[in-house]
């Protein structure tokens, strides 16, 4: 038996898998440990050839052999986790999490071969490719990648009939994503998506841990933790306190370590809100950025919907209510709506029009004939928020006499200042000799539904052209052969 429509939320701190039931409603599938959401944590046991994924990994093992929040590194081509002399890419670690979900959930709903996986709206090309690679190594074919706020909007539209112009505020464990979209029956049109990394529940936990440490040191005159294991325990205590402060005005806790003893820590909701205040300001600025990107005002938004466990913090809801003049909507279990929406998306994908989440361009010296001004700029070819799939072309000229190789750097980012964009690739095109500078070159970028970029460079005079799909190179990026090899290796692994 094979299940047809499956969605996976591969989260920074929690991951979930949902499927579409015959009645058309999505349902979360628990893992073999009975959890509806699986902590995105991997533990490498030192004594047995086994990888633990989930709560057992998070709570039980040596923290030096445990990998947390690997999603934060999915866009880093050089990042590797070294364990027992072997190097693991972020893709492979994520593949272990996906493999656990696939194996456990297949026992309940049937064989899972094709999935929709969600990613943060601000995931760049490399992070998206890494996610697809992770799925392939776990034995999953990716039907579509979908942005997390999009998946959540699909779920809200389905479950609560939320229609009109909606702002999705997705504050999870690691990132904040804000998406503005229009829902009209079964049709969804994305207007814009904005994201902020390192703005999530785990950042709040770190702030709270620092406050715990400060209080502890005042009482005991020694640090709260002396090694990573102690730090993890204290971090768990601060996370528990954060959750309690969503329900209570005050909490008390006893924390400490074997060397220095215990101390009582008192914390108020007001203190916690003060600790996270600046992060909340960043969150509001991201909302304003999304409105500006979509050329909308606060009053143009009909509904604000909440996604992600961190939206349970009362201050988040108050802040949004104050900003929009209306209380935001919640679906109850805000941790699950992305996975549930992804399962719905698996069937509905034909009725959703998305946009390019980044701008893509090239570096060029731009001459303004009217003013005589010249400056090096990031010249955008595909602007952010262009509906996808799309293909855009810009005309350039060559820079040198007798230029034998045309070089086109592919940039990612909206800024016109080249210092603030990433060069994610380069295309080179050999051209005939003895040509003057100023020969025309067209650069066409194409962007597909899975947000991957192809670039075509055409030299008009010679007719020569080159087209490439952008690829990343780095220690943390696997070649196709290596991907296949490691995927085979992973299939034989014991993952619990």
């Amino acid at each position: 038996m094979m299940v047809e429509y499956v969605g996976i939320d591969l989260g920074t701190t929690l991951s979930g898998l949902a499927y579409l039931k015959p009645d058309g409603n999505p349902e979360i599938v628990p893992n073999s440990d009975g959890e509806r959401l699986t902590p995105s944590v991997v533990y490498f046991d030192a004594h047995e050839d086994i990888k633990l994924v989930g709560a057992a990994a998070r709570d039980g093992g040596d923290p030096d052999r445990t990998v947390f929040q690997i999603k934060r590194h999915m866009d880093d081509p050089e990042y590797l986790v070294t364990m027992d002399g072997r190097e693991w890419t972020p893709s492979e670690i994520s593949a272990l999490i996906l493999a656990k979900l696939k194996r456990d959930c297949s026992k309940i709903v049937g064989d899972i071969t094709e999935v929709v996986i969600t990613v943060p709206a601000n995931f760049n090309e490399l992070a998206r490719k890494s996610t697809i690679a992770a799925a392939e190594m776990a034995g999953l074919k990716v039907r579509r990648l979908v942005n997390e706020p999009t998946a959540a909007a699909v779920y809200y539209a389905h479950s609560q009939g939320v229609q009109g112009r909606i702002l999705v505020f997705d504050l999870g464990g690691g990132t904040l994503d804000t998406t503005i979209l229009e829902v009209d029956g079964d049709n969804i049109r994305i207007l814009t998506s904005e994201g902020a990394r390192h703005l999530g529940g785990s950042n709040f936990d770190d702030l709270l841990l620092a406050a715990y440490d400060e209080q502890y040191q005042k009482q005991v005159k020694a640090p709260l933790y002396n090694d990573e294991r102690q730090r993890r325990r204290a971090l768990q205590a601060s996370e528990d306190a954060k959750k309690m402060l969503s329900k209570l005005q005050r909490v008390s806790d006893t924390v400490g370590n074997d060397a220095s003893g215990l101390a009582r820590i008192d914390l108020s909701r007001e203190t916690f809100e003060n600790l996270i205040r600046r992060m909340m300001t960043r969150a509001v600025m991201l909302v304003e950025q999304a409105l500006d990107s979509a050329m909308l005002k606060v009053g143009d938004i009909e509904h604000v919907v909440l996604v992600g466990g961190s939206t349970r913090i009362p201050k988040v809801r108050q802040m949004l209510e104050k900003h929009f003049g209306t209380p935001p909507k919640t679906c109850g279990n805000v941790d699950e709506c992305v996975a549930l929406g992804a399962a719905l998306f698996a069937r509905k994908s034909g009725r959703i029009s998305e946009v390019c989440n980044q701008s893509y361009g090239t570096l060029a010296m731009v001459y303004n004939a009217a003013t005589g001004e010249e400056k090096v700029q990031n010249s955008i070819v595909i602007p952010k928020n262009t509906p996808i799939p799309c293909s855009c072309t810009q005309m350039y000229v060559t820079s040198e006499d007798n230029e034998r190789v045309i070089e086109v750097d592919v940039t990612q980012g909206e800024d016109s200042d080249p210092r603030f964009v990433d060069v994610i690739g380069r295309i080179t095109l050999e051209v005939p000799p003895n040509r003057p500078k100023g020969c025309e070159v067209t650069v066409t970028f194409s962007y597909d539904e899975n947000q991957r970029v192809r670039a075509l460079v055409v030299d008009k005079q010679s007719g020569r052209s080159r087209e490439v799909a952008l690829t990343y190179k780095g220690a943390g990026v696997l070649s196709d052969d290596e991907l296949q090899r490691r995927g085979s290796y992973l299939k034989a692994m014991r993952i619990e």
Partner: protein
Amino acid sequence: MFKKVLLSISKSLGRQSQPSAPATRKPLARPPADTSAAAPARTTAPAQNQTAEDLLGIDAKMGKEQIRDHLKLLYRRYNRAASSLDHAVRSEADSMLDAIVAVREKHFGEI
């Protein structure tokens, strides 16, 4: 009318008579002087005695709306930079985002 001349990192560095940057991993061009009149924000580490306003290029003559627009521009820039492939840029982006928030709170109140 604008004319755009292709100028890859290696060619722009070649113009400055410096060794070519590798094709991968170094994300930021070091082109000829940027004559842009927008966003005076910097990419170097803040000097010790600089205020947040100094760091962000905000002077006393700017009106509230001008400050708001300027902060929005900088926020957009440095929020994006926080996802940069360049670790140094990411690190600087955090400092600048802190400064942006501090100035915003000072001029427009706390959340």
